[in-house]
């Protein structure tokens, strides 16, 4: 699955885009975030419980219980500040 990071999440994690494989037991947005938190300190810090982040699956906002599958485009970013 392709994972994209934007704004301070991108700078904190130090990468804009990466490919991850989903283990069998990873079925929701929350599961993916848990999986990413095992990848090192930068991830733990960026995706910590105290951080306000948003997730989009296939370019639509998705809640924590939204299902995910291998081919999805998974994006993590802060609340938007455009306009």
């Amino acid at each position: 699955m392709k994972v994209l990071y934007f704004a301070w999440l991108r700078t904190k994690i130090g990468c804009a885009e990466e490919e991850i494989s989903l283990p069998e037991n990873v079925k929701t947005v929350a599961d993916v975030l848990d999986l990413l938190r095992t990848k090192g300190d930068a991830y733990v810090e960026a995706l910590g419980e105290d951080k306000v982040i948003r997730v989009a699956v296939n370019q639509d906002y998705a809640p924590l219980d939204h299902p995910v599958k291998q081919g999805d485009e998974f994006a993590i970013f802060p609340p938007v500040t455009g306009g």
Partner: protein
Amino acid sequence: MIRVQAENFDVGAEINALSEGNTAIGGICSFVGLVRDFQHTKDDDTRVSAMTLEHYPGMTEKKLAEIEEIARQRWPLEDVLIIHRYGRMEAGENIVLVVTASAHRKAAFESAEFLMDYLKTKAPFWKLEEDDQGQGKWVDARDADDHALTKWEKSQL
């Protein structure tokens, strides 16, 4: 119509082009957002001299198209134009343009304000402000923008 682009745009030319030849239009409302050269009154005295707008290519276009569609369903609009820039912009430059054309004044005003409120809270753009020392700082989302959106969800339009 929506456009996501790095280049600047000419507000006047865009509005003029939209109205041309359609005599069913009774009113055109537009809003342009610009990079403000303001003082950071909260933290310090550094001036913001420029900013960079990062966006999510693909999702941006999808969200803007959705927002346009919602506005067209809610109001009787002859035409809609949304232009949003990304990349680096200096103080005084255009960031975003919304134009709505309708037979009726109220529909034009309401839909333009709705589009801007929606853009501010749903379109995937992030501002990195640059002060006059060249330091970048990611801008936090404002609660006021979420509240502006709530207005539209509650109102029986």
